[in-house]
């Protein structure tokens, strides 16, 4: 009985209580609560570290104030290995660089060697390379969308995107027997011609994805919660992006139309009709949307390439097993799923390269990660890392 009496508050008391509990900015900002900076170790074994990134986060409450990344956990010194292998022996290693878009790596390396040794690639091989590079770009971007959705807490899109990606991997498997590390591009051409019925299946898949990707856009990118989570988070301007050396979709999301397929055209891309997708804000949401739009452009390229595919040989005639390019240097680059992927090879006229330098876009993009993500919430930092899409095989090489 007496207890009830005690808790009974009069109207006057209630008003007083409300006043007591009301939000008061001056009072809130008073440093009554003693907080100290928390240092958090992230990785190298963390499911959302996209590989083996280790970073030290300094946390002030939930805001990350400082990030110091440590890389090198996957360093295999491929550049040293290349000096001990012949030109064609190094080819399979390139697949292990950026293992999510291996096709581009093999192509960039083959292009550089071809430039060095003056090998002319048959037209059919060029078209096949374009077809597989674009399929690879779609597969890589689908993986990106799947993991980003998962990191943002949306689990169902993962299964849809992986289902589509799986269909591309089946096509690849039928072609060269491998699902991830293809070793399909060879110096002077490609290793295998299309199996019977492959083109029909590829076209069927393209027609399917053209429709489904629009649905996935609605499912993921149009979602209110997803937008709320991604829009305006970790934006950067074009000037800062260029200063940091960012290339690929993150650079294009700030409005710079830097796409090697257009700015330094290679292979048969000048014959293709497609747009370089650019966005304006350079925030996390734009970096996700640009991937989805690039998938649509890749589908456009694929349709044209399949239509224009000529007959003929798939590998250049008379390419020796041990290529001996004349002494000199060459640099060639392609637009990989992650950006400007280049190879710089120095030859001394022997059967092995004197020096191979790999310009990996993930390495350059990851470099900007601390500057981009500092000042964001801890939950958003992981997402920001995800939207830069680094693959650590390429970062550490």
């Amino acid at each position, binding site marked *: 009985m007496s207890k009830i009496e005690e808790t009974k508050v009069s109207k006057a008391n209630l008003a007083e209580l409300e006043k007591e509990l009301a939000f008061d900015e001056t009072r809130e900002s008073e440093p009554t609560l003693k907080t100290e900076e928390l240092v958090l170790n992230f990785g190298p074994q963390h499911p959302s570290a996209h590989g083996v990134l280790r970073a030290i986060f300094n946390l002030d409450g939930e805001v990350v104030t400082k990030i110091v990344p440590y890389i090198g956990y996957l*360093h295999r010194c491929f550049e*040293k290995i290349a000096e*001990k292998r012949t030109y064609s022996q190094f080819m399979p290693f390139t697949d292990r660089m950026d293992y999510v878009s291996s096709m581009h790596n093999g192509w960039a390396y083959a292009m550089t060697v071809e430039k060095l040794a003056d090998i002319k690639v048959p037209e059919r091989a060029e078209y096949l390379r374009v077809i597989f590079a674009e399929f690879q770009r779609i597969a890589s971007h689908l993986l990106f969308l799947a993991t980003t959705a998962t990191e943002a807490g949306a689990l169902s899109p993962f299964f849809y995107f992986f289902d589509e990606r799986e269909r591309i991997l089946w096509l690849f498997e039928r072609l060269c027997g491998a699902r991830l590390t293809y070793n399909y591009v060879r110096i002077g051409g490609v290793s295998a011609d299309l199996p019977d019925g492959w083109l029909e299946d590829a076209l069927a898949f393209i027609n399917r994805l053209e429709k489904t990707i629009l649905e996935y856009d609605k499912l993921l990118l149009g979602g209110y919660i997803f937008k709320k989570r991604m829009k305006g988070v970790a934006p950067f301007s074009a000037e800062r992006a260029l*200063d940091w*050396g960012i290339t690929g979709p993150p650079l294009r999301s700030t409005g710079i139309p830097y796409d090697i397929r257009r700015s330094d055209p290679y292979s048969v891309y000048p014959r293709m009709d497609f747009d370089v997708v650019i966005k304006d804000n350079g925030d996390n949401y734009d970096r996700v949307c640009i991937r989805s739009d690039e998938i649509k452009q890749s589908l456009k390229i694929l349709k044209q390439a399949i239509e224009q595919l000529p007959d003929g040989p798939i590998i250049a005639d008379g390419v020796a097993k041990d290529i001996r390019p004349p002494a000199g240097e*060459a640099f060639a680059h392609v637009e990989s799923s992650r950006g400007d992927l280049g190879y710089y090879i120095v030859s001394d006229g*022997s059967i092995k390269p004197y020096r191979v330098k790999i310009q990996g876009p993930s390495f350059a993009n990851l*470099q900007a990660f601390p500057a981009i993500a500092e000042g964001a919430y801890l939950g958003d930092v992981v997402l920001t890392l995800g939207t830069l899409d680094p693959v650590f095989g390429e970062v550490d090489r």
Partner: protein
Amino acid sequence: MSNENIVGKNGQGEKDPNELKIVEEKGLGYTLTVAREDILKAAVGLKEAGFDLLTFVAGVDMPDSIKLTYRVYSSKQKNQVAVIIKTEVPKSDPVIDSLTPIWSSANWHERETYDLLGVEFKGHPDPRRMFMPEDWVGYPLRKDYKDDRMVVFEDYRTDRPGDSE
């Protein structure tokens, strides 16, 4: 093509005809070869001419020097050109000015070159190793690098002296 035009407009050819000249090299495109003392000057000149994106720094271990190669690109040019800057440092004194104050992206690339080839970059804000542990001895990408734990792939098809050692 209006290639001459680009070189004339961007390049230092007009301003400094004696020292810095952009030439077209087979396999590489436009290259600019400078002495190591002039690297900062060349970089500032290129940056002012609109070359705002540095994409890589590579070191090549030559018999008595280390060749350094930088690739810069201009986003402001409609023709979208890239220039490769080449320079050389002697092995006895492998020091060169850092380009990090000019292009922030040089930071990790220079750390990598220091880590693997032992080139010191003067004025670098964070001169640590990039891939190898901090206490690592030696520079793995040097041709004379030796390590007991290193397994060297033996290949009978060698025609380069020193490969079968």
